[in-house]
C-alpha cells in the first residue's frame, strides 16, 4: 500500500492561464499545521473506534495475507452450495435486479488462459435490454508476487454493434489467486427480439495487485499497487434472451414549469426498465428527472439517465418483471432544468404519468 497524494499529477498546465491558476491555488500547509492536522485526524479515528490512520508504507505482511486469503477461501467454500455462492450479494448494492439476474443466469464455462492467467465466463444472464457477465479470473501459476485479481472490463459486440457500459462492475477475491467478478452491459438496440443472441466478448486486460511494488518516496508521484496484464481473452457465446420485453408508448403529457413533458416510451424487461421522456422546451434547456416506476405496490427506482441534450431524456430503472401487463405509473418527484445560462432549476413534483400495458 502507498501513501501518495491522488491530486499530484492532476494539476493542469495546458495554457498560461491554466499554469497561472495552478500556481495561484497551489496552497501548501505549514509543516506545524500539517502535523497538527494529522494528529487530529488520528485522534478522531481512534475515538470513533478506528485505529491510527498513520501511514504504513508496507504491504500487509505475508502472514496477514495468508490468513486473510484462507479466511476468504473458507467463507467461499462454506457458502458455495453451488456456483452462485461465489456471487451472492456481490452486486446487490449496485443493481436491485441482480438477484433475479443471478437466479436466472446460465452456466457458460467459456475459458481461456493467457500467460498463466485463466479468465472464465462462468455465468451469464441476458434479457431484452441488459447483459450480466460473471467472470472468474485465476492465476494458475500462483505467483508469489501477485495478490488480488480484477477482471471487470470487457468489450461486448454483436450484430448491432458494441454494447454500452452501464452499472459498473464489481468483484471479490476467492482465495489468494482468484477473484469473482460481475459486470453489466446494455444492448445497443433495445429491446432485443426473443430467441438467442450471439455475443463476442473480449477481455482485453485484467489487473493484478503487485505485492512487490514499493510506493514512491515522492508523495506527488502517481502510484498504484495494481498492474495491467494484457490479454486478450476472447470468447464467442450464445445466450437466450430471457423474458422478452413490453414496449409501451404512453404519450402522456404533463406541463412542468410551462414546458410540455411527454412520456414517449417505456420498455419493461425482466430486470430493467428503460424510459424516454421528451421536454418540448423552446429555450433548448436540458432536462433530467428523478423518480421511480410503479405498478401496484412495486416500485422501481430510476438509477441513471442521460442528459437530455437532444430534448430526449433517457433513463433506466433497476428491476423489472416478466409479466408487464397491468396499470403502471411513472412518478417524477423532481424535474431538473438546466438552462444555457448554467442555472439549474429544480422543480418539485410529483407528476404521475399513468399508462397501461395489455
Amino acid at each position, binding site marked *: 500500500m502507498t501513501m501518495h497524494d491522488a491530486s499530484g499529477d492532476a494539476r493542469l498546465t495546458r495554457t498560461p492561464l491554466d499554469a497561472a491558476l495552478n500556481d495561484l491555488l497551489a496552497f501548501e500547509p505549514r509543516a506545524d499545521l500539517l502535523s497538527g492536522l494529522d494528529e487530529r485526524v488520528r485522534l478522531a479515528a481512534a475515538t470513533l473506534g478506528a485505529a491510527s490512520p498513520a501511514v504504513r508504507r508496507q504491504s500487509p505482511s505475508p502472514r496477514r495475507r495468508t490468513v486473510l486469503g484462507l479466511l476468504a477461501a473458507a467463507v467461499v467454500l462454506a457458502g458455495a452450495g453451488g456456483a452462485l455462492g461465489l456471487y451472492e450479494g456481490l452486486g446487490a448494492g449496485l443493481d436491485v435486479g441482480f438477484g433475479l439476474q443471478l437466479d436466472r443466469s446460465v452456466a457458460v464455462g467459456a475459458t481461456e488462459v493467457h500467460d498463466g492467467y485463466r479468465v472464465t465466463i462462468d455465468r451469464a444472464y441476458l434479457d431484452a435490454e441488459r447483459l450480466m457477465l460473471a467472470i472468474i479470473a485465476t492465476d494458475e501459476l500462483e505467483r508469489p508476487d501477485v495478490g488480488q485479481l480484477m477482471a471487470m472490463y470487457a468489450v461486448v459486440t454483436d450484430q448491432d454493434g458494441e454494447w454500452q457500459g452501464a452499472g459498473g462492475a464489481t468483484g471479490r477475491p476467492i482465495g489468494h489467486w482468484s477473484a469473482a467478478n460481475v459486470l453489466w452491459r446494455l444492448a445497443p438496440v433495445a429491446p432485443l427480439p426473443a430467441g438467442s443472441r450471439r455475443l463476442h466478448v473480449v477481455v482485453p486486460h485484467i489487473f493484478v495487485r503487485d505485492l512487490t511494488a514499493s510506493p514512491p518516496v515522492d508523495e506527488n508521484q502517481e502510484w498504484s499497487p495494481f498492474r495491467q496484464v494484457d490479454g486478450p481473452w476472447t470468447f464467442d457465446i450464445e445466450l437466450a434472451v430471457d423474458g422478452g420485453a413490453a414496449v409501451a408508448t404512453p404519450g402522456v403529457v404533463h406541463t412542468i414549469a410551462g414546458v410540455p413533458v411527454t412520456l414517449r416510451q417505456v420498455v419493461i424487461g425482466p430486470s430493467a426498465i428503460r424510459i424516454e421522456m421528451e421536454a418540448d422546451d423552446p429555450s433548448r434547456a436540458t432536462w433530467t428527472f428523478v423518480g421511480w416506476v410503479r405498478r401496484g405496490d412495486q416500485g422501481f427506482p430510476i438509477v441513471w439517465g442521460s442528459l437530455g441534450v437532444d430534448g430526449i431524456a433517457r433513463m433506466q430503472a433497476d428491476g423489472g418483471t416478466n409479466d408487464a401487463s397491468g396499470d403502471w405509473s411513472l412518478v417524477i418527484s423532481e424535474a431538473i432544468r438546466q438552462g444555457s445560462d448554467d442555472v*439549474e432549476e429544480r422543480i418539485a413534483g410529483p407528476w404521475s404519468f399513468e399508462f397501461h400495458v395489455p
Partner: protein
Amino acid sequence: MDEMAVLVADGEMPLVDLDDELALAARTDPEAFGLLYHRHRRSVYRYLRSRTRSDEDAIDLTATTFERALVAMPRYRPRGGGVVAWLLRIARNAAIDAGRKTSVIPLDPDVVDRRPGASPEAVAITNEDRRALAQALAALPEPQREAVILRYAAGLTARQIGEVLGKTDVATQKLLGRALASMREHYRDDA
C-alpha cells in the same frame, strides 16, 4: 481488506479502483482510512484554503471534513466522481456550515511567492499578475468560481466537479468554459 468486495465504475482505472476499494475497506480497516486521508488531504486543504482567510481556518475545516468522512464512511457508495468528489462535497458543506463562504478569494501574493520550490511559472508571474488573477477569480459568479477552484486547487475533473456541485458533466464543462473565457478577458493570458 483482502476479503472485501471491490467496486469500480466500468472496470478500468486502477487508481479509481483503489480509492473505492480503500473506501470500502475503511469501514473497518483504519489503515485504509489513513491511506485515503493521505491521498486526498492536499486536495481538500487547497480547496478549503481558497475559501478561507487563514491557514489555520483551512486546517480546521480540513480536519472537520475528514472527521465527518470517518463517520459517513459506511454510507459511501462508489459513483462516477469517486472518493475525492465525495470528500470535496463534505468539505464544501463544512465550509458553508462554518459560515466561511467567502465572496472574495483571500489571496496574499507575497505569501504565495515565498513557497519553497515554486515552479518556473510561479517565478515568471509577478505579484501584479497574481493580484489581477485573484481579482478576476473573485469577480466570477459563485458557481463559476467554485468550479475553477475545484479544478485548479483540488485537481478535480469536470465530472468530479459536477458531482460536488450537483451539476451534469455538460453543465460543468460549460461553467468552466465560461469562467475561463471571462478570466481571459480580465487577465493577461500571454505570460
